[in-house]
């Protein structure tokens, strides 16, 4: 586990203990270094002092060649257990007397060296001149072991270890107490935040534990919560208003729409009555008075009848269109394949059936209003047949693809197609891209298709190029 991942509580404690430890260690090391320095210095000084005393005492022994006296003087060093050996050299640098007396003289330096005490290995040794007044009489050699130093360091080490352990313990205990004042508010804050995000209750407030930075953090946090709460309230109110407004408008719209549909239905219905009269009387004219009419009158009568019939179709389509708007859809399982076959048989005239090459892919069954969907297929297939009628080899392809989780049905033909820029106009009522002379029709068929698919929760669109065919797609939601 990395340091950044451990809980803040332990992070703080570790930090404090680590700092304490480092400080202690540095202190101990510096103190140890200082001790070492001081001890070396004081040992040197002490040895130098002893050396001076011995040297001063041994002048007469050297001056008057008294080995006994020299031996006696050196023997006084017994009282200094750290001094392991000492020796006197005469003026000419010859070994004169030594201590301890039983030590092999080969163990002593042959000749006096530098007049200075220095550390070598575990010993402090050096020479000191022996002089009476200013007269040089000989040299003193002293050698001291550092047993005293090691003894002192051992004691120091034990004390230092004890102090470090005690301090660590104290630091640990104190940090345990101190970290609470920092980590507790943070933990409380985190706990509150967690509770809020889990329960979505923005009325909860974090408890403030002090006036420090964490206290102001808690305040800021609580302020934020208050703001969120207020905004939530506003949003909620706003949403409710909106919903109510939408509902109102929808009701208004629906009633207007219903009125409009009722109006158009009644208009269409009422328009049919006079049309029937016109057709009836035109038929009477053609059948009963044909002999009395000349050719021009007969032609005009035929024109009247044709136009009247056309108008009848238009009114029928309009009626269908408005019926589609008014009627609720009743969903059942629709066997699409079967339906398409039936429709092809119904809508394609006998004489054209053989000319068209059909490509029928198997398509899935859907759930929807059977009559409405029949109308959709009728309109699309009859359009395809109609607009490919002037082709030498008309080709119509019907199928479906899965796209983005829904089924897309299509009807493609190689007919006259249309200009892409008008494709939005295709599905509007009475919008035609071709003249009625070229292709007969009322301009309502695709509008009906659009209405039905949208009522089913799907959508319809077209792709096409002028003179290169058109493709109509529509989707129905899966059941």
């Amino acid at each position: 586990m990395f340091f950044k991942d451990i809980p803040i509580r332990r992070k703080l404690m570790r930090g404090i203990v680590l700092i304490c430890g480092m400080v202690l260690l540095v202190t101990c090391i510096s103190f140890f270094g200082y001790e070492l320095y001081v001890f070396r210095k004081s040992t040197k000084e002490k040895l130098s002092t002893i050396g001076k005393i011995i040297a001063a005492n041994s002048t007469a022994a050297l001056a008057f060649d008294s080995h006994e006296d020299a031996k006696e003087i050196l023997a006084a060093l017994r009282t200094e257990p750290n001094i392991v050996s000492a020796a006197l050299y005469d003026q000419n640098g010859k070994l004169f007397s030594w201590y301890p007396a039983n030590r092999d003289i080969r163990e002593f330096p042959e000749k006096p060296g530098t007049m200075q005490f220095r550390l070598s290995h575990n010993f402090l040794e050096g020479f000191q001149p022996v002089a009476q007044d200013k007269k040089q009489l000989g040299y003193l050699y002293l050698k001291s072991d550092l047993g005293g130093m090691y003894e002192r360091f051992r004691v120091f080490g034990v004390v230092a270890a004890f102090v470090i352990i005690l301090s660590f313990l104290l630091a640990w205990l104190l940090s345990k107490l101190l970290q609470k004042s920092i980590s507790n508010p943070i933990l409380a804050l985190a706990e509150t935040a967690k509770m809020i995000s889990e329960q979505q209750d923005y009325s909860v407030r974090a408890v403030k534990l002090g006036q420090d930075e964490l206290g102001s953090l808690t305040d800021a946090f609580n302020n934020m919560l208050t703001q969120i709460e207020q905004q939530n309230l506003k949003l909620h109110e706003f949403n409710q208003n909106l919903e109510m407004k939408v509902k109102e408008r929808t009701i208004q719209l629906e009633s207007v729409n219903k009125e409009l549909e009722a109006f158009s239905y009644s208009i269409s219905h009422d328009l049919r009555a006079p049309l029937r009269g016109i057709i009836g009387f035109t038929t009477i004219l053609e059948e009963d008075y044909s002999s009395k009419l000349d050719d021009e009158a007969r032609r005009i009568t035929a024109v009247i009848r044709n136009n009247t019939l056309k108008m009848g179709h238009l009114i029928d389509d309009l009626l269908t269109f408005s019926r589609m708007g008014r009627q609720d859809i009743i969903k059942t399982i629709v066997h699409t394949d079967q339906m398409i076959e039936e429709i092809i048989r119904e809508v394609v005239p006998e004489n054209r059936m053989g000319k068209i090459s059909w490509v029928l892919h198997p398509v899935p069954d859907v759930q929807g209003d059977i009559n409405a969907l029949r109308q959709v297929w009728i309109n699309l297939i009859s359009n395809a047949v109609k607009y490919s009628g002037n082709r030498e080899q008309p080709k119509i392809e019907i199928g479906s693809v899965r796209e983005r989780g829904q089924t897309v049905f299509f009807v493609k033909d190689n007919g006259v197609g249309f200009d892409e820029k008008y494709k939005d106009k295709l599905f509007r009522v009475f919008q035609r891209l071709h003249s009625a002379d070229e292709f007969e029709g009322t301009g309502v068929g695709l509008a009906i298709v659009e209405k039905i698919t949208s009522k089913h929760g799907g959508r319809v669109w077209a792709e096409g190029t002028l003179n290169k065919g058109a493709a109509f797609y529509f989707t129905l939601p899966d059941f």
Partner: protein
Amino acid sequence: MPVLKIIRSRLLHAVFISACMVLHLYAQPVVSREYQIKAVFIFNFTQFVDWPQTAFPDADAPLVIAVLGDNPFGSYLNETVAGEKINGHPVIVQYYNRTEEIQNCHILFIALSDPQKSEQVISGIKGKSILTIGDSPDFLKRGGMIKFFKRKNNIRFEINPAATKSASLTLSSKLLRVAEIFDPSKKS
């Protein structure tokens, strides 16, 4: 510098030895090793004995070492003290053949064969701050201050503190420590 000092002393030593050899070969009769040591000891006494201020007329007055009688040191004593100074006093050596010649000296080595005569000399300079040294066995009994003697082939000396005291000479305790102390009540 200690090293320099050593080098210097060694150099001096070498010069001194060659000088000795030259003198030895051409000029002087043979000086026994015994007297060589005694000469050095005599010089060393100057460092462990304090004379009263009245013993010197002024601050750079010489400290005189005198030899009375037959000089057993040859030129060795001169060589030993050559160039030495004690508390600012240059050390010089004088040789007297007769008692009358004795002047203001500080150390008097009495090399008279006649003990009677020695005693006379000692009593003659009584009260003066002169350190008397001799090597006749009864030298101290006759009032002398320091007597050389031999022990196990070593030259040692005996001091008569009563005599030095009456001559207002202060002897270093260190000197006393390496010496035998003469006790007039004891028979030697």
